[in-house]
């Protein structure tokens, strides 16, 4: 489920800018570390850390857009907005930003797994008619579904959602409708990154373990989910992400745990061979 939330933020940014944001995983990590710092260093109660996580996610998203993407949108004509050069440049710049954030956290926390104090962990066992899940996993599921629905409502029921869809549909046309592209792009990064940070938060609440590299595998899974889902489809990415998650846990029953990491990539290969447009991709 968390893959879904991360994948959605990732796909949202891709859909609007046709650019891959590889720093997205670090937003997830930052969400987790905000919880850790709030709980251990600042000793805040959980309810007051949640808005901090949202804020940290929003600020990180804004920072990534300014440092990694804005610089490469200097030219406003169509050819340069869609050019390969811009896509490749932002791919590398976001990758670089991700590395910088990751290494800074690594430097401070020495790359060790940090554990969240027991009192913050959501690990009570819930009985759902014979199926036992931990309260943390229930929270992950509920928060994920709520955020996916909230995002759909935002995109389809509000004026900023329309502006986002307009920019993603035709950036030049949107510009001539008087839409301030930079503001819309900022909004996209803020929304996507809040989703990512909240995902990092609920996962660390559920499992209690936080580490500076935790975002890396998640962002790669999000990328795989986006490709399987059809590159530009948010529901596609969400479904693909859930698929990957389920496949991984099923594989965990039969395979040694080190092998489960392979499952996502095997799915990716299968899809690229048999359904190269993804689940909901448009033919191109």
């Amino acid at each position, binding site marked *: 489920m968390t893959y879904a939330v991360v994948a959605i933020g990732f796909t949202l940014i891709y859909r609007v800018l046709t650019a891959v944001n590889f720093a997205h995983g670090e937003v997830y990590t930052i969400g987790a570390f905000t919880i850790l710092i709030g709980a251990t260093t600042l000793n805040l109660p959980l309810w007051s850390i949640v808005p901090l996580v949202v804020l940290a996610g929003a600020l990180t998203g804004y920072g990534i857009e300014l440092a990694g993407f804005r610089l490469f949108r200097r030219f406003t004509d169509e050819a340069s907005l869609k050019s390969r050069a811009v896509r490749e440049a932002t791919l590398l710049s976001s990758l670089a930003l991700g590395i910088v954030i990751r290494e800074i956290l690594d430097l401070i926390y020495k790359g060790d797994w940090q554990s969240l104090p027991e009192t913050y962990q959501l690990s009570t066992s819930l009985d759902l008619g014979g199926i036992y899940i931990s309260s943390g996993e229930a929270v992950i599921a509920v928060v994920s579904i709520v955020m996916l629905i909230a995002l759909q409502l935002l995109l389809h029921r509000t*004026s900023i959602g329309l502006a986002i869809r307009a920019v993603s549909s035709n950036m030049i046309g949107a510009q001539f409708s008087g839409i301030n592209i930079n503001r819309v792009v900022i909004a996209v990064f803020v929304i996507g990154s809040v989703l990512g940070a909240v995902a990092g938060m609920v996962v660390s609440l559920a499992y209690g373990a936080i580490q500076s590299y935790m975002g890396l595998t998640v962002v790669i899974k999000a990328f795989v989910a986006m490709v399987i889902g059809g590159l530009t489809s948010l529901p596609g990415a969400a479904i693909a992400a859930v698929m990957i998650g389920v496949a991984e846990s099923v594989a965990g029953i039969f395979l040694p745990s080190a092998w489960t990491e392979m499952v996502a990539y095997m799915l990716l290969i299968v899809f690229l061979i048999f359904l190269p447009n993804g689940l909901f991709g448009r033919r191109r």
Partner: protein
Amino acid sequence: MSAAPILQVTRLAKHFQGLRAVDEVSFEVRAGELVGLIGPNGAGKTTLFNCIAGALAPTAGEIVYRGRTITGADPAKVARMGIARTYQNLRIFPDVTVYDNVSTGAIGRFGVSLAGAIFPWLGRRRDEAIAGATLGALERFGLLDIADEPAGNLPYGQKKLLEIARALALDPKLLLLDEPAAGLNSNETVALARLIRALRDQGLTVLLVEHDMPMVMRVCDRIVVLESGCKIADADPASVRDDPAVRAAYLGDEG
């Protein structure tokens, strides 16, 4: 015809690596006028348009709109200042409904905010203004019945109308139309001419690039003729038709 100029273009030039696409062109458009901009292919009409709308930064020269210099301003800002445009190649949003397409114009005009989306009470007045402007534009163009269709499903003629409707939702003072009749059949062209004329009669200033000569001659108050980036005529339709330089350069055997 003594109205104040709404747009003044002074010695505007745009060079593309030695190609003088627009070469020191000066003209003005007065408030309430319907001005045609014509010329053979490659004369620099669309380049000139792009410079005015902010899509291209001119090499030299100045563009003044309602007393303010807008040379090289960013297109979204130009649009919000009241210059709306349509495209030769459509720029509608195909996967978005007709209603929402027009709505983007109104959004451009009233702005958007993330806060307004999260806390609806902050954005309510703005949302109402956007809905009002959208419905008005849809009604005027007879697009209300198909408001919920995805724009990509419309026939070509209606896509063209949709684009003009979106431009009007911005409530522009100056409307730039880039070949609105291209690809339309003769009935649609006549209807479009009537519509453009009606817009002008309601006080909108229009600058029209068009290849359909009878239409330009019929609707425009004044015609500016470009050839190879230079202005070769600037007069009322009848004089332009009889101008020997224009006939030689452009109308040729058509005249």
